[in-house]
């Protein structure tokens, strides 16, 4: 089964983008694919990158009120990027450095945060998949045992060992600890580092600074897309990039596994909608999942190529029909995400699905794919008929 992930605005190639992709693909394979009845190993995931065709700032955003409010990182290397993301997580989900105390307060949430922190530093899809599998076991265990006995005597040094031990379902006995534990310990180390007061303050500052630049680049990418999306005969570079991946995915359908699934994050939803309604209505999508997207808003504003002011003739009662080429459409939004919108009021035969990222309005938009629980809940929703 081919799976296509279309990213939104404000994505630029680099370690952060790559690691997000690695972690996301791990969860898609291990958590989402089984919910769709898909073989996780043969699943083909395409992630067309169109960020290079996005907005360019001739003066490097010199127009921002504070010219330094651009993009900060905790380091130029992969570890620094991972640490930065975890600092963001911590800033949005304030916890103390005492992980056992946190677990005693809310064990499932602590497990989610721990794995989010570990997956933030995953170096390969294999590592991400191992973590995803371990996460599912740990999350199930934490749900079934929100107050396990061992937690009362656990220390910060042996908490992870005991969690891993209790949730383990190994098919073989190994004469060692196993790699997952080391990945989790790295994640915990990042988490502890990010909870130091000084660093948390820096993370908050980072988020505040990024907001201005993020909104600027969001608007910039959207304007660039709208002005240069092209025509069916001559698609613009962003459409061409995404369309090529969709065609490639379409070709990868096989007899036994012939479904095409598309996840579109944020503005990726608008690009996808334009493609389905104008550029390539022939592409059959078995399931479209828009996440933190503005598809409904842009239809309200009639900004798509095929948007028509007279369709439907009777809003708000009437709705625009779901594209015939889409068999199922799930739209995920978070009320804290100021850039996510509902879809059901505007397009018929779609399902809105509320997911609480647990983030504030500044962090929610990018938070969906960082949270392991997002994939779990998405899988549960997808497995429903």
């Amino acid at each position: 089964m081919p799976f296509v992930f279309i990213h939104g605005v404000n994505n630029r190639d680099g370690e952060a983008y790559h690691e997000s992709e690695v972690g996301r693909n791990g969860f898609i394979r291990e958590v989402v694919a089984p919910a769709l009845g898909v073989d996780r190993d043969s699943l083909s995931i395409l992630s067309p990158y169109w960020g290079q065709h996005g907005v360019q700032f001739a003066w490097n955003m010199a127009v921002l009120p504070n010219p330094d409010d651009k993009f900060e990182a905790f380091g130029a290397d992969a570890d620094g990027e991972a640490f930065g993301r975890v600092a963001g997580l911590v800033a949005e989900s304030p916890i103390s450095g005492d992980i056992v105390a946190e677990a005693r307060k809310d064990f499932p949430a602590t497990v989610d945060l721990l794995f989010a922190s570990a997956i933030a530093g995953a170096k390969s899809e294999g590592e991400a998949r191992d973590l995803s599998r371990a996460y599912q076991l740990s999350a199930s265990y934490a749900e079934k045992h929100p107050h396990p006995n061992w937690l009362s005597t656990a220390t910060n040094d042996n908490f992870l060992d005991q969690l891993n031990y209790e949730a383990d379902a190994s098919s073989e006995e190994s004469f060692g600890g196993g790699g997952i534990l080391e990945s989790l310990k790295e994640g915990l180390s990042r988490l502890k580092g990010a909870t130091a007061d000084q660093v948390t303050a820096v993370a908050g500052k980072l988020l505040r600074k990024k907001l201005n630049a993020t909104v600027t680049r969001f608007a910039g990418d959207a304007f660039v897309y709208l002005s240069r999306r092209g025509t069916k005969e001559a698609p613009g570079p962003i459409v061409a990039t995404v369309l090529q991946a969709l065609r490639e995915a379409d070709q990868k359908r096989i007899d036994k596994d012939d479904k095409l699934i598309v996840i579109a994050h944020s503005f990726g939803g608008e690009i996808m909608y334009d493609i389905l309604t104008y550029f390539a209505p022939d592409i059959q999508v078995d399931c479209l999942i828009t996440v933190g997207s503005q598809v409904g808003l842009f239809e309200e504003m009639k900004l798509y190529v095929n948007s028509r002011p007279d369709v439907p003739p009777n809003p708000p009662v009437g709705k625009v029909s779901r594209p015939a080429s889409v068999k199922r459409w799930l739209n995920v939004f978070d009320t804290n995400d100021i850039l996510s919108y509902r879809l059901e009021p505007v397009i018929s035969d779609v399902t809105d699905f509320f997911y609480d990222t647990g983030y504030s309005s500044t962090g929610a938009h990018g938070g969906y794919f960082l949270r392991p629980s997002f994939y779990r809940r998405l899988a549960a929703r997808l497995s429903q008929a």
Partner: protein
Amino acid sequence: MTLIYQVEPAAVTPGTHVLAIAVGRYPHLLGGDPGALANKPLGLKQLKSPPVSLRHLLDWCFAPELHPDPPASPGLVNNQAPLASVEVLVSADEPFVAQTPDGQCDVERATRNNIQLAFESWLARMRTHPGNIGVFYFCGHGIMVSDHYLLADDFGASPAQPWANAFDISNTMRAAEREIQGGMYFFIDACREISRDVAMTLAANPSPLWAPDLSKRLISSSLTAIYATGEGELAYAPLGGEVSRFTFALVCALSGYCGIKAPGTQTWNVTGETLAAAVRNILNVEHEYTQGKPNQKQVSEQQIRGEPVPILTLSRPPLVKVVLDLDPVQRRAMYDLYLQSVLGGRYSQSCLNQAFRIDLPRGFYEVGALDPAGGLPHVHHQEEELIPPFYTLTMRSQP
């Protein structure tokens, strides 16, 4: 320490001295004694396999005496250095009772102190004759940093010195090479995963069982060390208290499935090189047959130095485990699968829907598949050389 077997008098002629240690029960690791969990258990749990694996090794050691008619396996047979002593330490859920040619024997726990005493005792016996051969076997938890550390029963007992009850097998071997003249075989069935926690602790490396004195020259005639897995990797056993993958492969290789004929004799020698290659081969084939997970493939490693001192001298040629199969599997039951030795003798399986498995002496064979009804093509390979321990071939019947 528990010396479960000893031939008297020692020291007059060369002998083989075995020290076997298995640690399955770790009171201070996960799943151990209530309230005794180490502050940093390194993710390590209780193990069911080590005592079972050690018993499997002991059964092989004593096979000629415990199962003489007919022997289940050639066992530890060495006409240059017959079995002279066996010392054993085992930590398991239940007290371990060893079956020896002299009867049953209770075995002590494999604590760090007991291991130290047993090693010194083994070393003393090894020193009694320059032609002695030493076999050191360990099955249990292991970790690595710069060297390989093996964990004793009481590992993790002290919060102040969390890594104290382990020992450095890498430097123990370096010391042994300087202390004893005979040949030595070290079989280490343990993980070699790099431990971040240990690496991050200064001056806390476990000590060797004997401090290597670098002013001494290497005096041992040979040393073969075979590790269950590669550096940084895990070693495995099936769940439920079964023999570990490595020990299974080791004992299988030692049970008449490897060896090279000594020129002009009817003796087949099993040396370090031969044994190491056979163990790797068996691990690999077993992984494929049991459809093991790709990320749990276990590849043994070896370190071999010195003269080729045989651990075994066999009086019959080694056997080859043959597995013949046919593709497509739907045609299996239509064929006779056969092997025809160039020395005479034909071995076959007639029209069964399964792979043909048989143990055969090494040598050259014609290998083929023949349809008795004559309707399907004859598949055959001339002069296939069967080399221990395994020969596997899936023949293709086309069209």
